[in-house]
C-alpha cells in the first residue's frame, strides 16, 4: 500500500520523546516500520534526547553502583526467541499483537465492508487499540480517508487507537 499519510510532526516528536500513550505509539510504530523516511526523521529527533541527556544536571550514583553493574555483567542473559511470523502484509509491531497472521484474526464486522479487532494493550495504557479491515473503495470516515488515501485493496488494514481520557 502506498503511504499517503505521515504522522504529524508534533506526533513524531512525542514518539521520539517516548511520551505517547501505548496505543498511539503502536499506530505510529506501524507506520514507521514501513516508512524509511519517517524513521530517519525519528532518528534525527532522537538526537534531541541525546543532547538533553548530555546537558542534564547529573545526579551522583550510589557509591557501589558500578560494582553492582559489574556483577550483573556475568549473569546469563535470557534471550527471547521470537517465532518468525513476519508475513509480508504485517509489520512487526502488528505481527506481535496479532499473534499468528491476519487469517487467524477474529474479525468482527462493525459496518458494511468494515471489520474490527481489538488488540491487547497494557493495563496502564490510556487508550485502546483496534485493528480495522476496510474493504476496497470504502472510506474510513472516522479517520478521514482523504488524509489516508483510498485503499487500493484487496483490503486496507489499519491500526487505530481510540483514546479514552482517564486520570493518570
Amino acid at each position, binding site marked *: 500500500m502506498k503511504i499517503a499519510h505521515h504522522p504529524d510532526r508534533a506526533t513524531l*516528536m*512525542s514518539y521520539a520523546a*517516548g511520551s505517547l500513550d*501505548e496505543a498511539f505509539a503502536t499506530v505510529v510504530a506501524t507506520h514507521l516500520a514501513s516508512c524509511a523516511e519517517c524513521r530517519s526523521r525519528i*532518528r534525527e529527533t532522537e538526537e534531541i534526547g*541525546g*543532547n538533553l541527556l548530555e546537558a542534564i544536571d*547529573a545526579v551522583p*550514583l550510589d557509591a557501589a553502583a558500578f560494582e553492582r553493574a559489574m556483577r550483573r555483567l556475568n549473569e546469563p542473559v535470557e534471550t527471547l526467541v521470537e517465532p518468525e511470523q513476519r508475513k509480508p502484509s504485517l509489520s512487526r509491531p502488528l505481527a506481535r499483537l496479532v499473534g499468528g497472521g491476519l487469517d487467524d484474526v477474529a474479525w468482527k464486522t462493525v459496518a458494511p465492508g468494515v471489520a474490527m479487532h481489538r488488540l491487547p494493550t497494557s493495563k496502564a495504557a490510556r487508550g485502546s487499540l483496534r485493528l480495522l479491515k476496510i474493504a476496497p473503495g470504502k472510506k474510513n470516515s472516522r479517520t478521514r480517508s482523504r488524509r489516508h488515501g483510498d485503499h487500493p485493496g484487496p483490503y486496507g488494514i489499519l491500526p487505530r487507537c481510540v483514546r479514552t481520557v482517564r486520570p493518570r
Partner: protein
Amino acid sequence: MSNALSSSSRPGQGEDDQDLIKRLAYDSDRAAFQCLFLRFGPRVKALMIKSGADADVAEDLVQDVMITVWRKAELYEPARGSVAAWIFTIARNRRIDRLRRQSPHAYEDIDDLDLESPDADGEETVQARQRKTLVFEAMAELPPDQQRVIEMSFIEDMPQADIAQKLGVPLGTVKSRMRLAYGKLRERLEDVT
C-alpha cells in the same frame, strides 16, 4: 571527575563515545564500560528522577540501562545516530516499561529495524556524528517556550495534553510549538545535508 563530566556535555564528544562503544563491542573492554557508566549513569539517573522516579528506582533503572548498553554495544550502528541519542532511546524504553508500566515493544521493534541494516558507509557515519551537533545548535536557537515544551516531553515524560494543562495553554499551542521546533531542526539539517 566533575570537570570531565561538565566538559563532556559539549557537542563533538561523540567521537570519544563511539570509540568507547567499539571497545565494548569488540573487546568487551571493562574500562571502556566504566567510562561510559560514569559519564552516562548519573545523567540517566537524573533523567529518571525528572520523569518521576524516586532515587532507588532511578538507581535500578541506571543499572538496567547501562547493562543494556553493555549487551547491545555490538548492535550499535553509528549511522543511526550518536551514542548519547542511542542511550537516550534505551533509557526512554526502560522508562516506558518501568515508570509508566506500558509496553515498550512499539519502540523496540522500530529501534531494532535500523540496527539490522548496517548499510552505513564512512560518509554516512560522519553525517550522523555531525547531526547531533546540528541538532544541538538548532535547539539552542529555539525560543524558550519551545525549548520548555521539548524538555517537558523528552525529559519529564509528559504527554502533550499534560504539558498544555501545566502551562495553561491550549493543546494546539503545545502541538504548534513542537512543530515549529521540529521545523527549525529540519531546516538546520537540510542546510548541510
